[in-house]
């Protein structure tokens, strides 16, 4: 009796049904994603309920926080504020302003993200290739994250505004992107380095037996095997670039972005308490949109890889 051809009875045996299995698995994953989304909405609903409950409770029991309508508007007041004119007599509603600002910040965050990813990848490749580079640079890469660059933002802007390279004048916008890139490059360089170093000694020996150049080894072996490490790092980098953008906008007061709106509307909190909440929603939406984009990229990059099983 041959026992070599015995397949796991749970999976399809013939190749013709592999395609069917793949589309079934995609459908299953889409369904799982949908279920996660429903749970997320339930979670948001829970937060809203708790918000209103706390407000209600504050009417009867003295709580350590201020639950008045001035500081904690009702959820429906927040939504109503979206439709109000941004500035007295203006045609723009608050919602228009927030959407425009969010979009502007999105562009900055995305720009910073791309730069950070590029720099991170480059650093990772260099550090993997040259041991001295890894030993010398990696501690600094790690230490770079203890430098609260977003706290340095005003200083960065000050320096940046002095720089002129030919006809290109550095504006505050570039400073914001620089800060976003700075926060984004670290998770990516660490993740990419781990990924590039991930191939087993056996695989490395295989490439060596083919007389592959270091360059070829990076392209054909190391880079593909680093994808599972790069993908989660991309998510962290994306989130970091969003945070960097918003906070840099806040501390530099640069116009056009959602950070600026947060500060402006926060100042108006005594006259129009609900506006700042709309701005906060904008900032949250910014983060979620970027996360969604990166998740889509993730799905695309890992489409041919085996799915991980967790315990």
């Amino acid at each position: 009796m041959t026992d070599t051809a015995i397949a796991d009875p749970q999976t399809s045996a013939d190749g013709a049904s592999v395609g069917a299995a793949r589309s079934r698995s995609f459908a299953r994953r889409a369904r799982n994603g949908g279920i996660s989304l429903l749970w997320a909405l339930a979670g948001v609903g829970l937060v809203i309920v708790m918000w209103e409950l706390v407000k209600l409770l504050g009417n009867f029991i003295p709580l350590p926080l201020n639950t008045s309508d001035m500081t904690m508007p009702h959820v429906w007041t927040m939504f109503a504020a979206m439709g109000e004119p941004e500035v007295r007599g203006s045609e723009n509603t608050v919602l228009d302003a927030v959407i425009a600002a969010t979009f502007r910040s999105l562009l900055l965050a995305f720009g910073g993200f791309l730069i950070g990813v590029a720099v991170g990848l480059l650093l990772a490749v260099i550090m993997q290739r040259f041991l001295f580079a890894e030993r010398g640079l990696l501690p600094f890469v790690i230490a770079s994250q203890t430098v609260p660059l977003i706290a340095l933002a005003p200083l960065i802007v000050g320096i940046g505004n002095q720089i002129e390279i030919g006809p290109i004048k550095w504006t505050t916008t570039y400073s914001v992107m620089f800060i976003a890139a700075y926060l984004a490059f670290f998770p990516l360089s660490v993740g990419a380095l781990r990924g590039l170093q991930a191939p087993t000694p056996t695989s490395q020996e295989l490439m060596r037996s083919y007389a592959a150049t270091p360059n070829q080894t990076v392209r054909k072996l190391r880079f593909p095997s680093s994808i599972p490490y790069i993908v989660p790092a991309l998510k962290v980098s994306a989130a970091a670039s969003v945070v960097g953008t918003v906070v840099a906008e806040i501390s530099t007061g640069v116009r056009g972005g959602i950070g600026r709106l947060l500060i402006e509307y926060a100042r108006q909190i005594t006259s129009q308490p609900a506006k700042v909440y709309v701005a906060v929603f904008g900032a949250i939406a910014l983060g979620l949109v970027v996360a969604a984009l990166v998740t889509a990229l993730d799905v695309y990059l890992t489409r041919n890889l085996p799915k991980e099983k967790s315990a």
Partner: protein
Amino acid sequence: MSTQTADRLKLIWPPVLIAVLFLSAWQLLVVVRDIKPYLLPAPSLIAENFFGDIALMWQTALYTGTTAFLGLVFGTIVGLVMALLAQRFIVVNNLVTPLAAGLAAVPIIALTPILNNMFSITSRTPRVLVTAIIVLFPIFVNVTRGLIQVQPVQLELMRSMNAQPRTVLRALRIPNAIPFFFTAMKVAAPLAVIAALVAEYFGGPQQGLGSRIAGSAANTAYGRAWAYVVAAIITGLMFYLIVVAIERWTTPWTGRTRSA
């Protein structure tokens, strides 16, 4: 010299060398090109400001560090409780995990103005709270993972020994989760410092590092501003190193190759 010392030196000299080269190049650049302090202060100027008023540096760092510490402790406790609940009740896990993933992507610090209003802006509370919220999520995600991802063979073993769920939690899941906890803490601790610092940009008491950095910059005292930055870096590093020390002391088995 023993091989252990030799090995340690081999790891230390490249970054030290690069640090020395970097600082020297920086100093040289400022002196030779006569760069004004508002553009880029020399390391010597920064050192002067830092050591010149070290008591003030310490006080300022202590203020922000305390905020960070309180937020870290509070956020960690809540995160741990939530992780235990999420492991025990799948509903909690399903509700909180997508939220945690979503919130990880958004600038939570943007909540500070709201918290400043809900709680008194003149107290530390809003800053501690926003720090706690920021710290909460890495802790929750990692510890939950550590509690849930035990090897199937270990679960079978416990079952074959007729262990009750509470015992499995105590004897298997929690010890398994400890390395995950420290991974999260190594991220959360410096993050708490940064969060406490940035939260100071939204107004309130001005004795912290963030306020002083911005204040010095506004007064064009750039040497001093950078000195505060150095203090901030040191504070973040201290938090990180303390976590690493606690980790080494309590879990000597991490970092080794795992047994079969």
